[in-house]
């Protein structure tokens, strides 16, 4: 009889193991309450903004190591996005490091595009941990995410451009002398 119970338990475990790790891509509800604000720090973002999910397995502290899930969603309003149940291919039930990056949709189809566009509004949450679940376990929302505000991508100042130009000129001179 013990064998049968073990077999049944193993069967359930196998089904769970085959599934992808999933979570609720919501920043409100189920323990999450992290509205995202505009540049003034008070206006909550609406449908003109998008959010995407970045992640890395385990615990990391360098945001450049995070991968883009490439699952952009529009904000529902009042600073909240409600992306629903979302899966991460190649993962299982594990804890990951996550970050939410947002941008104004008019500035590009991805955060990476908007982040290099002068005048675009972009923002990133602090890194936070998230427990992915599999199988019949109901998924977690972004309960450890904290609120943040977007900022405007700076337009390079003329003096900065001039310095860059001087640097280039110097390089050209060096190359000619050689």
């Amino acid at each position, binding site marked *: *009889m013990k064998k*049968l*119970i073990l*077999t*049944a*338990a193993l*069967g*359930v475990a196998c*089904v769970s193991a085959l*599934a*992808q790790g*999933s979570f*609720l891509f*919501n920043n*409100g*509800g*189920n*323990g*999450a*309450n992290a509205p995202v604000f505009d540049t003034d720090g008070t206006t909550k973002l609406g449908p003109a903004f998008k959010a995407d999910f970045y992640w890395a397995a385990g615990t990391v502290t360098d945001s450049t190591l995070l991968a883009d899930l490439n699952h952009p969603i529009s904000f*529902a*309003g*009042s600073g*909240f996005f*409600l992306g*629903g*149940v979302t*899966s991460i291919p190649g993962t299982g039930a594990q804890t990951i490091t996550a970050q939410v990056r947002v941008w104004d949709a008019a500035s590009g189809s991805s955060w990476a595009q908007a982040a290099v566009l002068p005048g675009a509004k972009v923002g990133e949450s602090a890194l936070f941990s998230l427990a992915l679940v599999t*199988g*019949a376990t*109901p*998924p*977690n*929302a972004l*309960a450890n995410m904290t609120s943040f505000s977007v900022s405007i991508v700076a337009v390079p100042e003329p003096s900065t451009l001039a310095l860059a130009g001087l640097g280039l000129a110097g390089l050209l001179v060096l190359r000619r002398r050689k």
Partner: protein
Amino acid sequence: MRTKALLCAAALAAGAVTSMAQSNVYSLNVVGYINQTLAGSSAGQYQMIANQLNTTNNTIGSLIPVAPDFTTLLKWNGTGFDSTTYASFAGGWDHPTFTLNPGEGAFINSPNPWTNTFVGEVLQGSLTNAYPAGYSIRASQIPLAGTLTALQLPASQLSDTDNVLQWNVATQSYISYTLLGGTWFGGTLSEPTLAIGESMFLFPAKAGNWVQNFTVQ
């Protein structure tokens, strides 16, 4: 699950009396309501629920027209969950056509406790609830509490190692029951026992039909 269910079997007996082939045919529709208390928690607590009163379309938008903001419903699709979330600032449910038919079930979580009143018709007759092999969320199609045997899903209809996962709201984890030799093992009771408005994960090896015969006398 703390389901305080008040089933008002208010028989609105619409006695449609017709004369067909020299005999009288009577139609008795029983409508009622169930007040279902949903635990809710700022930390987000899940609960497994069921709709046990039939309506014209059984969509979430009609079954639960208003809910606390960020209330989320999860429905099993065979391999994972689909979700819909209520946000008043965005016009209500983001997927209002989500359905929850009698016999089906879903997870729900809300940021605070509240009570939803399900209103609809009590299904009668021979009611078939088809279930697949593998995971599915199932519930009684009629608003009754009791053991699976009392709800007309006896152990004899299932197979050895078939599994039932019942959600414990207090611990936010499953109570697992496994069937062996006609006896349920695991859990704290001798048999899985459902409250009114509660659903469960059923994990049988073979597909089958959960047939309930029910008539309001």
